[in-house]
């Protein structure tokens, strides 16, 4: 089995190449956890602030103003909300106008008193600009905090007037929920602003870190002048390319795992802080999901390697290969770029059409499915698309390495002076 020998030989060489190994493992780890630390840092630098003016004097043992404050603080914990007590509503409103706070809340003197009257309607004043996402999040928090109090007051009033069991008055129907899961195959809930860009980011990192390895493996043989001898062995070009690709793939698997660990580290650091919704959410990566992620990353890396391998057939040394490949590889990178900001389906039709021609788009779509969902029959098509690209690229690479120029192309560099044509 020729490819097996090439595989073992190359794997040995790769494992002994400490610098390359460090690059493919440490880089993604660092990148993703740095991303996590960074976004966490920026969040603590600019906390979400609301100002709270509590004039409520209470009534009997009840102080609903104080209770509202406590409720808001409790609900706000998920986004590290800071609730600042102010004595003047004027000042509190000015802070919102200045952008120091997202919302100002005014609780009047008779708040608790009014709520204790059976038919009293208390006033609460919010000062906010409804446009921003932050304000919407804060609005929901205040809503929840307030509805707790409203429920409590309603129960008390119903009991006072009718001596009724409020829960039966308010909920005449009991609803039983039987959950039917139509989410991702992994049943995860992700609702953070980072979740959307994560798939594109993962594709970018795995592509960038693995290009160097295959260049070293193929063009390195040319540069160190070992390729010619290898090509004269009975091993076919298919055997050589497959063996080499598989060897690099093993290293890439390690890299994919590093990426995964990087993501988990990042998730741990930031996803709890960057909640778009009220409940703190984190991606809980389940074993099956992790396996799917690694499989998709691996396929992506193989495609990357094969594109690189095909291009490297034209290079005579690694420098040349890195230069030209860096240029061409930046195309898929550029194509992933719009996906960092917009979903594929909301891009203009022409751009979408171009994107569907690129293999990386399918990696993106599959990663999207694995991380966010939902899964659909299209994912099967994407898997086939990725597999098709792999085979096509393998074929092209083998054909390119079958050209005589792969061998004689190096000669011209050696004979600096070419004899005149006779």
């Amino acid at each position: 089995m020729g490819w097996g020998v090439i595989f073992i030989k190359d794997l040995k060489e790769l494992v002994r190449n400490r610098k390359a190994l460090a690059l493919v493992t440490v880089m993604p780890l660092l990148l993703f956890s740095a991303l996590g630390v960074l976004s966490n840092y920026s969040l603590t630098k600019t906390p979400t602030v609301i100002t709270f003016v509590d004039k409520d004097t209470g009534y009997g043992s009840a102080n609903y103003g104080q209770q509202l404050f406590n409720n808001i603080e409790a609900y706000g914990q998920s986004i590290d909300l800071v609730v600042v007590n102010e004595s003047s509503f004027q000042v509190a409103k000015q802070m919102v106008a200045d952008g120091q706070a997202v919302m100002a809340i005014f609780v009047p003197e008779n708040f608790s008193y009014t709520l204790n009257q059976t038919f009293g309607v208390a006033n609460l004043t919010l000062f906010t600009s409804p446009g921003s996402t932050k304000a919407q999040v804060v609005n929901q928090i205040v809503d929840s905090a307030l509805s707790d109090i409203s429920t409590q007051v309603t129960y008390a009033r119903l009991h006072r007037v009718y001596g009724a069991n409020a829960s039966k008055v308010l909920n005449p129907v009991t609803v039983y929920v039987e959950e039917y899961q139509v989410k991702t195959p992994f049943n995860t809930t992700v609702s953070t602003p980072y979740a959307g860009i994560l798939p594109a980011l993962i594709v970018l990192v795995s592509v960038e870190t693995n290009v160097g390895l295959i260049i070293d493996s193929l063009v390195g043989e040319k540069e160190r002048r070992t390729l010619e001898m290898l090509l004269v062995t009975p091993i076919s070009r298919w055997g050589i390319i497959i063996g080499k690709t598989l060897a690099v793939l093993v290293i890439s698997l390690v890299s994919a795992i590093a990426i995964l660990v990087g993501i988990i580290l990042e998730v741990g650091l930031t996803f709890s802080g960057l909640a778009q919704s009220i409940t703190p959410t984190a991606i809980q990566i389940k074993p099956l999901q992790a396996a799917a992620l690694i499989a998709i990353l691996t396929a992506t890396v193989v495609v990357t390697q094969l594109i690189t391998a095909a291009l490297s057939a034209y290079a005579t040394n690694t420098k040349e290969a890195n230069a030209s490949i860096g240029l061409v590889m930046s195309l898929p990178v550029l194509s992933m770029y719009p996906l960092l900001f917009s979903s594929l389906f909301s891009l203009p039709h022409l751009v979408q059409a171009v994107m569907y021609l690129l293999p990386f788009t399918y990696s993106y779509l599959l990663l999207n499915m694995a991380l966010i969902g939902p899964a659909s029959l299209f994912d099967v098509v994407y898997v086939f698309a990725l597999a098709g690209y792999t085979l096509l690229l393998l074929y092209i690479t083998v054909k390119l390495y079958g050209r005589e120029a792969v061998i004689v192309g190096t000669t011209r560099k050696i004979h600096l002076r070419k004899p005149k044509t006779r």
Partner: protein
Amino acid sequence: MDAVVASDLRKAFGEFTAVGGVSFKVEFGTAFALIGPNGAGKTTTLRMVSGLIRPTSGSIMVLGGDPSVGSIRSKMSILPEDAGVYEKLTVYEAIYYYGLLRGLSRSEAELRTEHLIKVLGLDDKHDEYGSKLSKGLKRKTLLGMCLVNDPQLLVLDEPTDGLDVRSAKNVRDMLGKLVDEGKAIIVTSHNMSEIRSVADTIAIMDKGRIVVQGEAEKLLAEYGSDNLEDLFLTLTTSEVE
């Protein structure tokens, strides 16, 4: 049967004819030397012999078949011009893997490798990485990689180029032994005096053509030792004109 039969081999790169019709035969138990200045077309000829490139016209028969076929290739070895060793493989590993690549079983490859390491005097470099070897030791390792499959035909492109006098002599002695064992060898050099001691047949090549070809002894008798050197110089053109 002859080990190699080349008839009217021609190779053109676009407009430029690198090899313009060369014919020769190499018998088993003999060494054939292709001698000529840089750019004469020696490497291109050897690449056609090893099946790496196809002749534009003419035909090549190696060990009774087409040199690009796997079964023929496992019985021959090529040491390409300026070949390098694997920097991250040890001397042992490099030779061993080339045994496997040419179809030896693991145990065969192990035995052959250990044997060759002894024969080549590489005992104390058994586990040394390629990157740590001197030029001479690298060439010995490469020879080991070529000999591991006990090839019937050995094709060597400038095997002594860049070696010091002692290492070069080592290589030549090695080749002499292999010829005595009945192997066929093709070797090139741009240095006449250096290679004629191992060659049974010599072909002087210039500008893609063989200008003189014959048995080394006959040529020597015909022209005399010193004159042979002169003959080479007058028959061939300098690389830098």
